[in-house]
């Protein structure tokens, strides 16, 4: 599996335009994710383009939805390659929103201080997650699931205790004029700045995984942890660092979401962990670890965003939304799987 991956990569980057070369490029996990996403996009463009799906404001919207999933999906993909899950991400987004909202709006802290406080808490939570997983060797599913509940309750209970309700409104007015707010609140052309963050975070994760020794360590940890330990790879440190990276990414999404809607909500991002893992799996990540691609997850998150918004332009009654979403996701993974299998057939491409 690894050898095929490397060979396909090499023949891909030589810009080989022959059929064999093109097909071998498709064997890269991320590019098969593109196939599914393109087909879904064409579906919406053809059937709902007239109704408004292709307009700039609507494109901006589904890209926003994609970004709030994709920014977290990038480090989560790395974590999944290393063989672990993090189900606490949705609650961590809400906790970060609660912290920043309370500090910036109710306590009058300047934005850099509120952001720093949220980042510190995220780092602590990520460290706890990672530490518990590596020390107890219990399934990360269970540990981070427990953290999901702990954080959600803390965000809701904490905010209720401090301000009497679970939302804090007015982050924009409270931080008006703060130069740091520009990083989270502005638009780039017709698109939200979350799009830029999303692309940057994805590229960073992809570079880390493919081009650095740390990335090799991640592959080794997920592929065969015992062999990795014997090779001297600091498996525990790798996992703890990845958990911290995931938690920090949730703080980024929290800041972007807060400015997009001018509200912090302790009930935010319910179910986000589910969407993030889905995006990673559509992008080619294996649930069993050892294989995955942050760029693929970008396309997975994009697909999610397109379906989540595009549905409302179809003539289907709104009550069928969940069935539609499930069918689209199923179609996407099946198409991606087929494309990958075709690309890796002997004689059809691959090595």
């Amino acid at each position, binding site marked *: 599996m690894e050898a095929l991956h490397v060979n396909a990569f090499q023949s891909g980057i030589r810009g080989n335009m022959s059929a064999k070369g093109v097909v071998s490029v498709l064997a890269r996990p991320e590019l098969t994710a593109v196939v599914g996403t393109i087909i879904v996009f064409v579906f919406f463009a053809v059937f709902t383009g007239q109704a408004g799906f292709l307009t700039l404001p609507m494109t901006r919207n589904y890209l926003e939805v994609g970004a709030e999933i994709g920014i977290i999906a990038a480090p989560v993909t790395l974590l999944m390659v290393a063989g672990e899950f993090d189900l606490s991400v949705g609650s961590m987004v809400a906790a970060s929103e609660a912290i920043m909202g309370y500090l910036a709006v109710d306590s009058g802290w300047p934005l850099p201080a509120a952001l720093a406080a949220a980042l510190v808490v995220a780092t602590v939570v990520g460290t706890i997650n990672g530490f518990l997983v590596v020390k107890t060797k219990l399934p990360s599913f269970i540990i981070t699931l427990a953290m999901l509940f702990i954080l959600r309750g803390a965000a*809701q209970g904490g905010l209720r205790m401090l301000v009497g309700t679970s939302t804090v409104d007015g982050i924009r007015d409270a931080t008006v004029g703060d130069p740091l707010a520009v990083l989270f609140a502005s638009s780039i052309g017709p698109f939200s700045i979350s799009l830029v963050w999303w692309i940057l975070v994805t590229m960073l994760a992809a570079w880390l995984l493919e081009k650095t020794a740390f990335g090799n360590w991640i592959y080794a940890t997920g592929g065969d942890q015992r062999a990795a330990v014997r090779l001297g790879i600091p498996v525990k440190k790798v996992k703890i660092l990845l958990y911290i990276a995931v938690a920090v990414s949730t703080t980024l999404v929290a800041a972007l979401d807060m400015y997009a809607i001018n509200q912090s909500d302790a009930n935010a991002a319910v179910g986000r962990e589910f969407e993030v893992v889905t995006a990673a799996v559509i992008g080619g990540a294996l649930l069993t670890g050892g294989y995955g691609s942050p760029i693929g997850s970008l396309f997975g998150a994009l697909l999610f965003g397109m379906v989540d918004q595009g549905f409302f*332009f179809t003539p289907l009654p709104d*009550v069928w939304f969940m069935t539609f979403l499930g069918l689209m996701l199923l179609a996407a993974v099946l198409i991606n799987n087929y494309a990958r299998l075709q690309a890796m057939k002997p004689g059809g491409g691959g090595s």
Partner: protein
Amino acid sequence: MMIKKLAFVTILLALVFGFEGGAFAKPTFIMVTHSPASDTYWASVIKGLEQAGVDLGVKVQYRGIENNLNDPNQQRRNLEAAIAAKPDGVIVSDPTPASLNATIKKAADAGIPVIIVNQGGDQVANVGALAFVGDDPGKQGAMGAAQFNALGSKHALIITAPIGALSFLDARTNGFKKAFAGTSALAEIPMTDFNNSNRIKTITESQLQKDPSIDAVFSIGGCCIAAMTQVRADLGDRGKEMHWGTIDVTAAATTSLKARELDFALDAQQYAQGYYPVVMLALYVRQAIQPAEPVLITGPIVITPNNVNRFAASSR
């Protein structure tokens, strides 16, 4: 020496707790509802409940549901646990009479006075409760429609949950549609997105994109106010020409009312739904006073940019 110390401490503790349990026992009232304590609407009810406990010198306790709004099984179990604790009074919401009435009757049969709160106003006689303090969601929707009628709106978009998901939201939506003079369309937010203001915003914008003839937007509750405010800002000039209104008042709604960006907000005054039942139960337990009317509706009242300042001065 150790035994003497231990005996001394034990006697001291027994005195303290015995004292507390005996002569100074405060009445205990338990509120059991279908909502998590983290819900923005119910947060105000709980504030009213707790303030009433302080003002009247009674112990109050709130038992909600942990995850989703309105899980009748979980609420039934919470109610049974509350009855087993032998409180001096029970305040319970009754959104699903078919599932809950039997258990509520058990409380009344056990001699515990019951007040129904928020939903189930027509069930007072059926379960042997003293009274109902709450909402009429149909009227809330109708009042919203009346506001838009007065403003001259012709085609309204209602931001709501999918029909059938939450019965009180359905009642609000249906009340609106019946009373509204023009035509209406729905922006049904999937329950999975219901807590996500960003997605409520994008879905509403999709509906407005599809239908340029919409000239009014009505939000069905506190869930959707932040999103609706942002939608208005995103729409620019079109947003300024449209009319915007909501049920429930949040901090975002108050700011928008003051800036004249929101035409009205309907305040259910749900703080009173936490406060009045405690008053009624305290009078019943201490002075044997029974509510003479079976139904007390606490709202809504209409908050507009003209009277928002008085409202904002309160702390509920």
